[in-house]
Each structure stands twice: as structure tokens, then as C-alpha cells.
């Protein structure tokens, strides 16, 4: 099996933020070129390209990137899979290497959102004469009239369901997640925001959808991230330095949401995360308690808390206790989102599922600077695209 393993050879991300002087192709090309350079490779070494983007998904994003960095005729997979888009691009390259069709490949995720406000909340004029339309025969938008399906509310409801089932979980525990991630981001120069807030400031910020205040919601923004993946066999032929810095992909798993009764009206982010985590731990042979760091999908503070339990980072039902005891802080039992997470590092949709692997790989290489988790040898990344898609990767440092 060892010959069939896949490794990260190069990794890069742009700073997340808002770019008025660059478009999404510029950002993707910057990240791609930097990842190739980081891995000591060129576009001519690549056998496959996976390109993830959501807002311009039908625009041939991978081919547009090739026109910036090199048109070599290799197959391009353009993918869109909600917030798991970037991870899906990685999966395309990973599978091509696993299948023996490629030795080296480039995966890039990119997005340009600007300041988009509340996603999905664009004004829609109601009909002047009511006429049923769509799958539910609706005569007007049901948003806000039959509950909410906008993201802050959906994830608030996911959190409150957990709070209703478990003692010791409430507004304060959810707010502590955001307090932590804002604090962590102050050490990450690539984060969109690097500002610390007290727990009182987090809880006192404008309420979006209880219990998520503004400081508990990720921002919209722009950015890109890229990875160069390589087969174990090809890696063996590369330089000592390339092999020393290579990071092993010990598990790569994707799931979608299985049927549940409530999932029909309110996306369930737990079932598919739990299934993916179980498979990732089995595939890698890694135990959750072995993890030195985790980058998980904290699109809202409520979501992060659920995933402590879903990813088995805490005892069942004890996510509240885990944050109360500072377990996921950078000096805690299992550091979570030392990058600042989506809440403060930012969440350019298509880039997120690549950027989290960049973050973990950078720590495993011992190159994370001020935010380095000392001695990190194994880490996990997790993304959720609502609807739903989940991707989990387990990464391990190369043996000395």
C-alpha cells in the first residue's frame, strides 16, 4: 500500500481579505505558482489539475488559470461542491494519483466574493398576482415567513438543537468559540482579520440569529489556496529537501448527508461529519486523541462546537465542557483553528477546503512562525458544504 500513498509536495495560500486590484484568476494563479515553487515543481510536471470555485463555477475556471500559469494540455476538473469545493478539487487530484493516472497534480481553490453581506438574502420582489410556483407551490419567498434558511439561522438552529440535548451548552459556550478564534487569528498574518475580542464583546456584538452574534459569523472575502500532490513512488525520486518537507495524506474522505427525518427541512451537519470522521480515523489509523491540531469548519461559532463532538475531540455530549476547559485553545488538549478559523481567517468559499490543508501542512513542516503548534506531527482538516458535502483529511509529518 505504501507505494500508493499520496503526499503534499507544495502548499500555498494568499492572504484572505478583499482584493479590488485582482480578480479570482489572479488570486488562483498567485496561489498556484507559489505552491509549485514551494514544491520545487513546475506546471510542466503536473499531470492533472483540480480547480474549485463556486461563484464562477460555470466559467471554466481551471482553464482560465492555465492561461495564466501554463497550458500544457493536461486534464482539468472544474468542481463546485458548496463550501467543500476546495476539498473536492483536492479529491480529484488525489483520486487521479491513487488510480495511477497521474504522479503529480495541482489542486487549487479560489473565490472572490467581496463584501457580500448576508448570503442568499438578496431582495426578491414578490409577485403582484399570487401564482404557485416551484416544488412547494410557493406564492412568494418563504424566507422569514416559514422560518429561516439563511446561513446564520440554519447554523444557529443546529447549535440550539445540540444545546437542547446537552447540559452545559448555551450562548456563552458558543461565544467562547469565537473569542478563541479571534484570539488565534492575531498570530496569523494570512488571516482576513487579526483582532482580539473579549467574551463580553463577542456576546455584546449585534445579534444576527440567536445565539450567533456578528462576531460569531464568518466574513465574506476573497482568496485562493493551492496544493501540489505527488505519488509516493515519484516522491522517492525527488530531493532530500523535498522529501523532508513532504506531508503524508493519511486519510482523504468525502461523504454526503444520509437520510434523516429532519434533514429534509433543516440540513444536518452532524451525520455526514461523523461518518467521514469514522472513516478517516480508520483509514489513517490515527486516534482523535493523537491529533496535534485540527482545522474545522467554523462558518459560525455554533458549528464549531458541534464538531468537537462529531470529530470525537471530546467525550460524547461534552463539547460545552471542552470549550469551558479551553481544550481547543492553541495551548489546550487539541488546538482547533489556530489559523483563526473561518470566523477570523476568512471564508472565500472555494478556497477554504484547500487553505485548511495548507495550514495543517505548514505546522507539520514546522514553518508556521508565531502560530506554530510546537512538535506537531499529525493533524486533521474538515469542511462542510451545506446541502451537504463533508471532506476530512488526516495529514502526517514525514518520518525523519
Amino acid at each position: 500500500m505504501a507505494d500508493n500513498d499520496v503526499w503534499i509536495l507544495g502548499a500555498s495560500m494568499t492572504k484572505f481579505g478583499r482584493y479590488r486590484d485582482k480578480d479570482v484568476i489572479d488570486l488562483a494563479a498567485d496561489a498556484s505558482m507559489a505552491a509549485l515553487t514551494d514544491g520545487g515543481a513546475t506546471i510542466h510536471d503536473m499531470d492533472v489539475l483540480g480547480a474549485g470555485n463556486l461563484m464562477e463555477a460555470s466559467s471554466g475556471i481551471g482553464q482560465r488559470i492555465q492561461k495564466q500559469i501554463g497550458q500544457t494540455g493536461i486534464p482539468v476538473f472544474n468542481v463546485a461542491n458548496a463550501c467543500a469545493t476546495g476539498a473536492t478539487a483536492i479529491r480529484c487530484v488525489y483520486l487521479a494519483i491513487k488510480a495511477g493516472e497521474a504522479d503529480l497534480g495541482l489542486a487549487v481553490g479560489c473565490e472572490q466574493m467581496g463584501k457580500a453581506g448576508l448570503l442568499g438574502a438578496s431582495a426578491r420582489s414578490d409577485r403582484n398576482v399570487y401564482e404557485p410556483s416551484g416544488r412547494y407551490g410557493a406564492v412568494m419567498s418563504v424566507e422569514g415567513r416559514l422560518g429561516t434558511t439563511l446561513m446564520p439561522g440554519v447554523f444557529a438552529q443546529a447549535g440550539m438543537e445540540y444545546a437542547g440535548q446537552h447540559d452545559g451548552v448555551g450562548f456563552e459556550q458558543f461565544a467562547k468559540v469565537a473569542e478563541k478564534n479571534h484570539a488565534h487569528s492575531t498570530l496569523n498574518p494570512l488571516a482576513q482579520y487579526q483582532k482580539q475580542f473579549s467574551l463580553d464583546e463577542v456576546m455584546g456584538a449585534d445579534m444576527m440569529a440567536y445565539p450567533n452574534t456578528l462576531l460569531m459569523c464568518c466574513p465574506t472575502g476573497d482568496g485562493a489556496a493551492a496544493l501540489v500532490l505527488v505519488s509516493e513512488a515519484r516522491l522517492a525520486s525527488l530531493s532530500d529537501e523535498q522529501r523532508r518537507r513532504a506531508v503524508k495524506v493519511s486519510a482523504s474522505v468525502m461523504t454526503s448527508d444520509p437520510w434523516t427525518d429532519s434533514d429534509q427541512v433543516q440540513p444536518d451537519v452532524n451525520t455526514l461529519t461523523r461518518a467521514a470522521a469514522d472513516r478517516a480515523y480508520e483509514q489513517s489509523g490515527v486516534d482523535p486523541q493523537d491529533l496535534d491540531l485540527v482545522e474545522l469548519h467554523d462558518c459560525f461559532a455554533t458549528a464549531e462546537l458541534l464538531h468537537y463532538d462529531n470529530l470525537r475531540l471530546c467525550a460524547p455530549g461534552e463539547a460545552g465542557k471542552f470549550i469551558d476547559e479551553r481544550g481547543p485553545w492553541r495551548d489546550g488538549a487539541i488546538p482547533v483553528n489556530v489559523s483563526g478559523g473561518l470566523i477570523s481567517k476568512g471564508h472565500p468559499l472555494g478556497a477554504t477546503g484547500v487553505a485548511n490543508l495548507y495550514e495543517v501542512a505548514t505546522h507539520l513542516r514546522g514553518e508556521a512562525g508565531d502560530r506554530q503548534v510546537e512538535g506537531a506531527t499529525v493533524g486533521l482538516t474538515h469542511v462542510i458544504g451545506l446541502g451537504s458535502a463533508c471532506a476530512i483529511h488526516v495529514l502526517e509529518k514525514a518520518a525523519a
Partner: protein
Amino acid sequence: MSARIPLVDYLVLDDGAPYLVASASTASGALYFDRRNADAKSGQPGFERRRLADTGTVRTFTIVHRAAPGVPTPYVSVVVDLDGGGVVKANLVNVEPDPAHVQVGMPVRLTTYVAGTDDEGTEAVAFAYEPA
């Protein structure tokens, strides 16, 4: 009396009290508010129409303060576990939109409200839940 139309087609407004209907899989009993080719639970085709209960309990909630344009705030969004089966999302009305007054597990019952009136005077009737 002005003409009325349901906000969505799974709300039935006839001569009696308003109620919700769903498609129930004949294979598994799983319930859906829209048309399906096969049951998402069992993969089997075959559905029958089923009237759902008017009462249930709050499975989860949020209180929305920042909403889509034109939606009055704050309002309470709930996911309700209906007695006898079915899960539905709606607004919770006739309650203070405050976490002190809304709890997971609270019993609720179906109600309706007028969500709007079109240029011909037809009222769009929405369903909601209120504390039971």
C-alpha cells in the same frame, strides 16, 4: 370574504381547520413536502398523501435579528417535531422573540397568518406555530 391562497401547497385551506399534508413513502413511511421520484430513505418509489398532526414540540429554534429585505425582525424560526411524525420548519408566533420565552421541547400548535395581499386582493395565508 377575500380570496385566499396558501403560501405553499402543503398547507391545505378548505372548509375546516387548516392543516398540513405530506407525501408518505409507502415503503418506509418517510414524509416529504415536495414531489420525489423515490423515497430518499429506502430508494423505493410509491407515495400516499398523509394529513399531519397540528401539534408538536420545538426541536430547535433561532431568533433572527438580521433578515432578508422586507422581513420584520426579530422573529422566531423553529423546527418542529410533529406528533405522529413529520418535521417542519416555520415561524413561532404569539411569543416574545426572546430566548427566555422559547425553549427546545416546548409544545406548540399550528396556526395561520396572512403573509401578504396581491393586487387582486387575494390573501396569501402562511402557517406558523404558537405555544400550545
